[in-house]
């Protein structure tokens, strides 16, 4: 059975169905059902997946798509892809449930009513593309999904986002497009230089021998991925996009879409251009470390919670990139696990932030205070999510971050040590934010002067100008309702479970990472030793 | 091709190869002779025209100056030279001066390619009786005619008076219109002669071909005026139009435009030059008609029985005789035909001469092609039939539509007339009521106009 194609076809068909049904409510329900079906299929897929199997890409389907260019419709999953697909499949139903009213025009922060059907249809299309991008084993197909993915996300940000949504959407699209086009050049050049008349990834591994060419091509791919993943200094679009996107879209954007960048580094940069990767490793590691520290420091200074979360992500992506380019199996596996965990933890943070904003209509940290008194459940989940962001032991992120640092330290001790400071800083921003928002006395929202820049940045244009509290009880901050509990619960559960028992996931990931690293090391049998020596000197 | 092969047979006819060999002084002599002959020809022509037209109208014509009034045109010329040269202040001086020159020079030049005889001995040099010949001689004639149009336009334009401008425009429109028909009428000749060189065209008219019809050799006439009657007739008409002669002398229609483009060239030498150019033009078109259609300088039929008729200087005589005859035809037309209206003139040129001409050319070409290759005759016939049927169809459609339109118009007019007859005030026509007292019958004081 063509599992992966089915996995992609179901949401696409679901999207068509969603856009065709009559009522909005039905559309939402249908979307939820479809996403759950996808989740179920993914679970089946994961169960059938055999980590110990010799074949690298399982469930592989390869058909000629455009023979003229040697392009195939080639999909297949290894451990890395599988966990990321699973991440998407889990997040989408949660996001659908969380965005139940995002497009309705209800809620304090909501923009005016927009087409609900379109929103959910876009979500499902996006899901299909996310699955496609992780499953693609053809470089060209990967590129196609990589670019096409932008479009639904662009519309989701642009149509359903905050006050400056169109600016953010355009910025997001242009950054990604620019990176993507650079990658296109590299893809074309790869095809031409490799001269194998195919884009199938397995055949292209290390196909380019000439070191200079490799370096150029690597640069093309890497910049695209660095923009996507936002690695410092290509990150500036992320805070805008994430802050302006509706909560659900932000989750998918930061939680899954950006993973494509790091996933691409791990899968394509390393394996296609091993020599160049080694050459560029110091640079990347420097960037990653700078990103870790910079993201964390800037996050501390943020006054807007969504922006703050976005900057924490930049810091986390630094860790992931660090792990990828450390090129040890610990670090690689850690990075992969980090991708999954980060998806869940940031997802949880964004969703809970979204709930807050939905209630109060402002994303300014200063507008909140003492939430834990009025809405303890909300505050509690927020705390758990936040703690996962700072990698508290016992939560899943700790495992992955530890693995990354450990793996990195094996080869690059100094950067690893510096990166560790990011953990400390993370504690600062998370706890400080919690303190400001959740503790203390319950606070009236202080509205910005109408027309001031602050207002423009934080308050949605259509939110009520008089305090919400006058209309709603308990300072307008009711605790989580049932739907929201259903949204948050699985996330918290995953964070906790993976924190204590990451083995099943690691079992899936490890062989794939090892394969990846071994395919790099084919040329140099013992790079680790050599590098360690180098590092020791 | 055939013309050239023919040439080789008869050394008497000069061909293209015989030109360009004259020493310069011979050329100068020939040019001077042509120039002088043309000048004299104009003097003679004016007198001849007046005399002949008078005779046709039962008058005497000029009979005071010299014997038979022969010196009349000389006297006129002198008079023109001695009259005051008026120049209105509105004119564009440069153009005003250039125009007569532009008009006159090409008229003379066109004559340089007219063959007037075979090769003769002249001052110890054997030379054809023709100033020069070119592979594109007829084109030269047409080109000169076209340049002449500039003269007309410039004269009208430079004068800056309404009559002149209109006259110039009309004249140029007329000349260019008829030039097309004229150019088309030549095509038949070229089809047969296979050359554009005037001397070779004349040579080609020396012998008629023969049509083999059922084993019988029917000799074809050698002159194109008979072989290509439609072309010839069209040429004759366009010849009149091209030179602005009666019945197509609209540009100078005194009734409406005073003197046309030459209104401001009041009687002086400038006018004399213009008039000279007009007459030279007449001679040129006559000479062209002779060259292309009437066998050039060759002797006409009964005389041509005499072997010596086409040798030596004799042909010059035949040529000038033909010229006189053609010129007489001009005069005859002038004496007998009324001037047409301008729309009639243009309609004749555009709507009759051109299509008829094209159809005729195609017919000639088809027949020729069929004679050339016996194959595919059916195809040609089919094509021809289609074309003919198409043309007829179009014509029929035109005609029926026109007819219908005419009928409806007539019916309309009739209805209107009847209606008006029954009810005079219908249709907004101001009819005085019947009971209005008669103006003269009522004693009222007259109101001067303008004082309401």
């Amino acid at each position, binding site marked *: 059975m063509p599992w992966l194609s089915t996995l992609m076809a179901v949401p696409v068909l679901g999207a068509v169905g969603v856009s065709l049904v009559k009522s909005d409510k039905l559309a939402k329900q249908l979307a939820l059902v479809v996403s759950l079906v996808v989740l179920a299929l993914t679970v089946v897929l994961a169960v059938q997946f055999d980590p110990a199997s010799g074949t690298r890409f399982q469930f592989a389907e390869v058909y000629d798509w455009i023979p003229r260019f040697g392009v195939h419709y080639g999909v297949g999953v290894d451990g890395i892809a599988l966990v990321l697909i699973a991440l998407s499949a889990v997040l989408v139903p949660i996001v659908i449930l969380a965005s139940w009213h995002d497009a309705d025009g209800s809620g304090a922060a909501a923009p005016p009513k927009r087409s609900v059907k379109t929103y959910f249809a876009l979500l499902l299309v996006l899901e299909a593309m996310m699955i496609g991008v992780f499953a693609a084993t053809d470089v060209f197909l990967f590129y196609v999904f990589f670019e096409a993915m932008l479009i639904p996300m662009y519309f989701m940000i642009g149509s359903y986002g905050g006050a400056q949504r169109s600016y953010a959407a355009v910025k997001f699209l242009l950054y990604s497009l620019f990176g993507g086009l650079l990658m296109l*050049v590299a893809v074309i050049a790869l095809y031409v230089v490799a001269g194998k008349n195919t884009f199938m990834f397995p055949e292209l591994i290390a196909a380019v021998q000439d070191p200079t060419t490799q370096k150029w091509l690597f640069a093309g791919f890497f910049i695209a991925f660095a923009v996507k993943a936002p690695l410092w200094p290509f990150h500036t679009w992320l805070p805008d996009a994430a802050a302006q996107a509706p909560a659900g879209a932000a989750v998918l954007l930061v939680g899954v879409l950006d993973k494509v960048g790091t996933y691409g580094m791990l899968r394509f940069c390393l394996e296609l251009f091993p020599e160049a990767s080694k050459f560029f490793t110091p640079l990347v590691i420097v960037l990653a470390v700078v990103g870790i520290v910079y993201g964390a420091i800037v996050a501390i200074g943020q006054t807007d919670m969504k922006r703050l979360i976005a900057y924490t992500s930049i810091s986390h992506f630094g860790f992931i990139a660090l792990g990828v380019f450390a090129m040890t199996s610990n670090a690689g596996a850690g990075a992969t696990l980090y991708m999954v965990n980060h998806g869940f933890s940031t997802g949880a943070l964004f969703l809970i932030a979204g709930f807050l904003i939905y209630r109060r209509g402002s994303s300014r940290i200063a507008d909140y205070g003492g939430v834990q008194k009025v809405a303890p459940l909300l505050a509690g989940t927020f705390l758990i999510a936040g703690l996962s962001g700072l990698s508290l032991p016992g939560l899943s992120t700790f495992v992955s971050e530890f693995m990354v640092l450990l793996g990195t330290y094996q080869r690059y001790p100094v950067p690893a040590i510096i990166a560790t400071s990011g953990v400390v800083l993370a504690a600062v921003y998370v706890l400080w934010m919690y303190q400001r928002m959740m503790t203390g006395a319950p606070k009236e929202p202080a509205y910005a002067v109408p027309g001031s820049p602050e207002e423009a940045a934080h308050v949605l244009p259509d939110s009520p100008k008089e305090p919400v509290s006058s209309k709603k009880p308990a300072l307008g901050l009711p605790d989580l309702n049932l739907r929201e509990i259903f949204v948050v619960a699985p996330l918290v559960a995953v964070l906790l479970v993976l924190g204590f028992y990451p083995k099943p996931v690691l079992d899936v990931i490890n062989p794939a990472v090892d394969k990846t690293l071994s395919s790099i090391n084919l040329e140099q049998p013992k790079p680790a030793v050599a590098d360690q020596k180098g590092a020791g000197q | 091709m055939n013309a050239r092969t023919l040439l080789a047979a008869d050394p008497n006819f000069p061909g293209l190869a015989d030109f360009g060999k004259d020493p310069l002084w011979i050329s100068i002599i020939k040019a001077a002779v042509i120039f002088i002959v043309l000048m004299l020809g104009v003097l003679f022509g004016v007198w001849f025209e007046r005399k002949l037209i008078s005779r046709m109208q039962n008058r005497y014509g000029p009979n005071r100056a010299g014997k038979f009034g022969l010196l009349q045109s000389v006297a006129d010329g002198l008079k023109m030279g001695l009259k005051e040269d008026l120049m209105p202040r509105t004119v564009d001086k440069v153009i005003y001066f250039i125009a007569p020159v532009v008009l006159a020079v090409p008229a003379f030049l066109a004559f340089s390619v007219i063959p007037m005889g075979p090769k003769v001995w002249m001052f110890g040099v054997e030379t054809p009786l023709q100033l020069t010949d070119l592979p594109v001689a007829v084109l030269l004639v047409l080109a000169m005619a076209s340049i002449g149009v500039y003269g007309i336009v410039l004269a009208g334009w430079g004068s800056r008076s309404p009559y002149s401008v209109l006259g110039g425009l009309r004249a140029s429109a007329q000349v260019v219109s008829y030039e097309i028909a004229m150019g088309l009428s030549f095509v038949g000749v070229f089809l047969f002669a296979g050359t554009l060189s005037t001397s070779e065209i004349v040579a080609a008219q020396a012998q008629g071909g023969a049509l083999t019809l059922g084993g019988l050799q029917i000799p074809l006439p050698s002159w194109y005026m008979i072989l290509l009657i439609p072309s010839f007739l069209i040429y004759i008409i366009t010849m009149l139009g091209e030179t602005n002669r009666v019945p197509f002398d609209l540009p100078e229609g005194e009734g409406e435009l005073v003197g046309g483009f030459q209104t401001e060239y009041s009687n002086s030498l400038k006018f004399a030059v213009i008039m000279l150019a007009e007459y030279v033009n007449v001679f040129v078109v006559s000479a062209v008609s002779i060259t292309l259609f009437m066998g050039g300088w060759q002797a006409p039929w009964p005389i041509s029985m005499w072997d010596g008729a086409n040798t030596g200087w004799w042909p010059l005589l035949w040529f000038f005789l033909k010229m006189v005859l053609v010129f007489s035809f001009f005069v005859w037309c002038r004496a007998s035909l009324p001037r047409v209206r301008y729309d009639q003139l243009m309609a004749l040129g555009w709507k009759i001469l051109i299509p008829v001409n094209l159809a005729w050319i195609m017919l000639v070409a088809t027949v020729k092609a069929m004679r050339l290759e016996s194959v595919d005759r059916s195809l040609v016939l089919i094509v021809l039939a289609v074309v003919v049927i198409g043309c007829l169809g179009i014509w029929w459609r035109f005609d029926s539509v026109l007819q219908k339109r005419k009928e409806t118009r007539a019916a309309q007019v009739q209805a209107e007339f009847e209606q008006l007859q029954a009810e005079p005030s219908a249709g907004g026509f101001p009819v005085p009521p019947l009971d209005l007292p008669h103006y003269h019958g009522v004693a009222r004081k007259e109101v001067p106009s303008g004082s309401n």
Partner: protein
Amino acid sequence: MNDAIIQPPTIEYALLSPMLLVFGAAIIGVLIEAFAPRYLRKSIHMPLTLLALVGAFLMTVLNAVNGLPDAPAAMGSVAVDGPSLFIWGVILVLALVSTLLINDEEQFVAQAAAVPGSPDEEEAILSGYAQTEVYPLLLFSVGGMLLFASANDLLIMFVGLEVMSLPLYLLCGLARRRRLLSQEASVKYFLLGAFSSAFFLYGMALIYGYAGSVDLRAISASLSAVSGQETLLLIGTAMLGIGLLFKIGAAPFQAWKPDVYQGAPTAVTALMASTVLVAAFGAVLRVFWVALGGLEWNWKPVMWGVAILTMIVGAILAITQTEIKRMLAYSSIAHAGFLLTGIVAVGAAEQNAQALSAILFYLAAYGFTTVGAFAVVTMVRDAGGEAGHLSRWAGLGKRSPVLAGIFALFLLAFAGIPLTSGFFGKYAVFSAAVAGDALPLVVVGVVSSAIAAFFYVRVIVLMFFSEPSADGPSIAAPTVGTSAVVALAAAATVVLGIFPQPVLDLADQAASALFIR
């Protein structure tokens, strides 16, 4: 004089049948203008034009099925080879589609000569005049394009160029609304077009002076044979190039494009923007590859410069535009630049075939998208006709999401987003260019694509993310023709974006034998 016997020439009527059919229909169209009563004209013209184009297309297909000749037709003056047939097919289909657009009412002036607002015009409108000459003009122009793209002889190419352009000059001036603009566009297009064709002609004269012939093959042969007159050759090449580059709107000869695209009736713009580019590229390819292939090292650097300039100028100036048609015009300039990178990618035979096939595919893909985009532009109207200003497009996505969505699709295709036809076009051309050692050009191309993407995206932003203004433009209820055009173009854009293989195969096949000489 030389008495050489003239051999009657031979003409392969069957090979030329598409062209002959189009011209024949055009001539019949003139007859209809002459003889059919006014109220019947349009209803005769429409089927005639469509039939002629369909028939010509079928003939083209038939020619392709019958196999290609190994020598140019009509005494070496028209080369009916693979590229020609492909280009013919594309032109004919695009023309057919544009005809459907042109069929729409109310686009063309009732009587071109009547002064706007004058009683004359009132009368002309009242009495139901319509400029049905549009159809024969269109056919003539299409016939000229066919000839232009397949000429194997500079003279024939020149004739094709003029036959293509002259009717277009007139068509540009026939817009019903914004008459002054339209006429101004017409006169500008005419003057500049005539100017450029004079350059083409002088270049042709110089090359004739060098090679002693205007036959492309003979010119190519003379490149190695004749020596000592390189100046003639080089200047001639340059001038020829100017004439041709003008037609494709390459910088620095692009000035006419925005003006003309904006002023012309949009249906005509659609025709121009799609087909002229196709035909002109056919000619450019022939001149530079067939005739001047041996001169590659001389023109290549210049072409590099032109391509770079064109891409950058097109992309950057488009950003400053506030008029939708002008913006599309600049985008078309940028696309001409992308295509030029394919022209530069000349090399060995195999490489040439690849580049050629890429260009052909790009032309097909771009043509359809363009027609579709302009078709959408015709539908967005306000009181004064089409709502051209970009600000009027704000919030269109709310007002009519389907139309805006389709337009967004076209824009994305222009931008070269994957899963649209534009992507594979760009991909094909760029990959050919990379293979042809023009990597820097591709990098520039990519950068300008990114710049270009900005203004495409801006329009999408306007349409979807801005609030509609209260008195915004209305969406004309689409006629069957227009909606068919939009649907077809959208379908082509999507299908070529997802399953380009059949068309790519076709282009490959067309390009495999390269140009016959």
